[in-house]
């Protein structure tokens, strides 16, 4: 039996939690110690429900040299996450039940992060035949997407949404008109022009979002817009929500901290798709998170090898890692800089994303699984990618000073991560 003592809740009130058989059995400002208790003294740290990331790329099967379910799980735990949803654009894709089951089972075997899957919308992500969504759900899929390869034909997307609606599941759209992206490698604007790099206009995202919102309205299905990057997308989602369309949205921490201008300095560590946009886009995303238009944070953790990212900008693959910096980045930008209450920021990493994907989110309450994170909201630290648990090293946050540090993570009462010394909080 573990008792977490000397903690505070996200509301900064004293909190102690007793865990038994992986579940929370008792909470209170101060719990009575029992002789057989194992005391976990959090020394004033915040104890919160561990995070859920609905958008990660763990590269297995097919590209284990970039990341494995194990290294990805460890990165998640180091970032304060107890569960993630892996995207299906592996090789082969997660388009059949046995593959989804394989990922979930491997996650249990590794035992440091609960793995869910976003199943493929169409077989082989080819945008043609629908996958057996019901079978995939039984195997552990919690949503569907052809992430990275949007369903090109509107008619196919319509059928996918209709099928998903019948099953009560959510379709995640990687909203991008690939013909508008063309050869583009970064946000279209002065910096791209200066660097001589082909641009990706904001309309590349917004035209696709407009289509999918109309299809969501047509079908009544639940649509989740992945990695929102433009101000106009935020407006369209806000409008759709007002009209009662069942749409939710996520954005990633890097879009809140950086703009296309930073690409000149950061190089391929700032190359991802969608790209870092303008300062006004960034501000609109922060505002969209603050007012609830954007429901939650996701990392779009997309590891590649250092060699791949060392290529010239146009040749290097899209994608950066994010699991081990997301919480601190969110806290730094949204709480410290934009003034959002700590509870709201944590909500966007815990309860809201779980709600969107229909996962239980009982929080810290008796009966809930003891999926917990301890963090120091004041600790300042410098991001050192060479110390990451992920195999990926490319992140625009490299060298950044962030405020807020994960001290420990527990999955069903088992410690899955503990920050090595110096231990500011956990002993």
């Amino acid at each position, binding site marked *: 039996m573990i008792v977490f003592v000397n903690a505070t809740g996200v509301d900064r009130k004293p909190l102690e939690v007793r865990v038994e058989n992986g579940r929370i059995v008792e909470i209170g400002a101060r719990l009575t110690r029992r002789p057989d208790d194992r005391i976990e003294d959090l020394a004033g740290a915040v104890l919160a429900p561990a995070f859920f990331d609905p958008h990660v790329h763990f590269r297995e099967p097919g590209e284990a040299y970039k990341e494995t379910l194990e290294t990805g799980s460890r990165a998640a735990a180091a970032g304060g996450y107890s569960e993630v949803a892996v995207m299906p654009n592996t090789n082969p894709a997660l388009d059949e039940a046995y593959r989804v089951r394989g990922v979930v089972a491997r996650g249990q075997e590794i035992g440091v992060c609960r793995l869910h899957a976003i199943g493929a919308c169409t077989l082989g992500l080819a945008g043609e035949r629908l996958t057996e969504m019901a079978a995939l759900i039984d195997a552990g899929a919690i949503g569907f997407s052809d992430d990275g390869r949007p369903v090109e034909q509107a008619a196919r997307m319509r059928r996918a949404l209709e099928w998903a609606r019948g099953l009560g599941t959510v379709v995640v759209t990687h909203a991008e008109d690939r013909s508008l992206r063309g050869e583009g490698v970064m946000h279209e604007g002065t910096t791209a*022009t*200066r660097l001589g790099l082909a*641009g990706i206009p904001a309309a590349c995202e917004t035209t696709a979002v407009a289509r999918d919102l109309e299809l969501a309205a047509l079908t009544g299905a639940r649509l989740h817009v992945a990695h929102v990057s433009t101000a106009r997308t935020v407006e369209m989602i806000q409008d759709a929500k007002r009209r009662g369309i069942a749409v939710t949205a996520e954005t990633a921490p890097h879009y809140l901290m950086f703009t296309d201008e930073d690409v000149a300095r950061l190089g391929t560590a700032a190359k991802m798709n969608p790209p870092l946009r303008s300062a006004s886009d960034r501000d609109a995303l922060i505002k969209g998170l603050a007012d609830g238009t954007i429901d939650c944070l996701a990392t779009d953790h997309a590891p590649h090898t250092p060699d791949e990212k060392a290529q010239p*900008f*146009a040749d290097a693959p899209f994608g950066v890692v994010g699991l081990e910096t997301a919480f601190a980045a969110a806290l730094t930008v949204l709480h410290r800089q934009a003034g959002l209450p700590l509870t709201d920021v944590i909500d966007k990493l815990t309860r809201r994303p779980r709600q969107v994907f229909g996962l239980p989110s009982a929080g810290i309450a008796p009966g809930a699984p003891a999926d917990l994170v301890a963090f120091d909201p004041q600790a300042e630290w410098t991001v050192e990618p060479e110390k990451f648990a992920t195999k990926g090293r490319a992140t625009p946050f490299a060298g950044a000073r962030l405020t807020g540090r994960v001290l420990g993570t527990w999955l069903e009462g088992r410690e899955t991560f503990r920050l090595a010394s110096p231990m500011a909080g956990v002993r």
Partner: protein
Amino acid sequence: MRPLDRRHLLGLETLPVSEIRALMDASRAHAEWLEGGAVKGDSLRGRLVLLGFFESSTRTRVSFEAAAKRLGADTITIGTSGSSLDKGESLLDTAWTLESLGADCMVVRHPRSGAPQDLASRLSRMALVNGGDGSHEHPTQALLDLFTMTRHGLDPSGLRVAVIGDVTHSRVARSNLYALTALGATVVVCGPATMIPSGLEALARRPGRVEVVARLEEALEGAAAVIVLRLQRERQEQGLLPSLSEYARLYQITPERLTRWAPGALVLHPGPMNRGVEIDSRVADGPRSVIREQVTAGMAVRCAVLERACGVGAWAESERAETMLVGGRR
């Protein structure tokens, strides 16, 4: 010797005006002896200059090679043929190998924007000269354009220069924008909207010195020089223009248009030309064309750039002068 970052020539976006002027002065000196019929100089004797041309090029490669050899350097040319991987790591490994061979300077032409800059940041001894990278910069081309203009008595300060054509894909246009605006010229850009990149005005090194106009006559009027950009035929397949004749109808530099809107203007073209597309042969071969002079100017400019990269000639002198000055002050 000057620190390595002051021997590299990666682009003109941030190269100090004093450096541009020093390169112009040295180019003038080289042009004089080259034109005077002197057979060979010796300022680079014993130096090893590498020519890394990872993209097809004739005139730039030959110009650099001729310049290096006229100054007495040994040259080695490497290209992509024989190695299918001309990207990232292999380029870096190649450069490290060459640096270890004791090369003083490497000229790099690369199809990817930013490749020479990435490379330069990883070198510790060998100076790097950008021979053109992707759609990013082509500093020696802009310097030779500038040199050609000044040789015709044009003072960049207050000058209007028209740049016509596919600016989106043009490293020549970008480097010219930087060099000309840094020296006080105004660059008026005109081309199809499909080939004018967004935010181009912000590339001016002095605010307001880059104008983008829609109609050719607006660009030509008052221009003392017209830089005609090459139109790659593949742009048509990419859907950036309906046809070459439609392009020619709107943007081709013809004797009639020049006479009407820019009667005294010099006409420059970085080559190779598509005669009958972006430029009428009667202009290319006509009295206002300085296109062949550009080639000669290129060699003078590249002599200066290579000396700067190797820290000899005017750059060895200036270092001594700086040292003496510092000593004198003490």
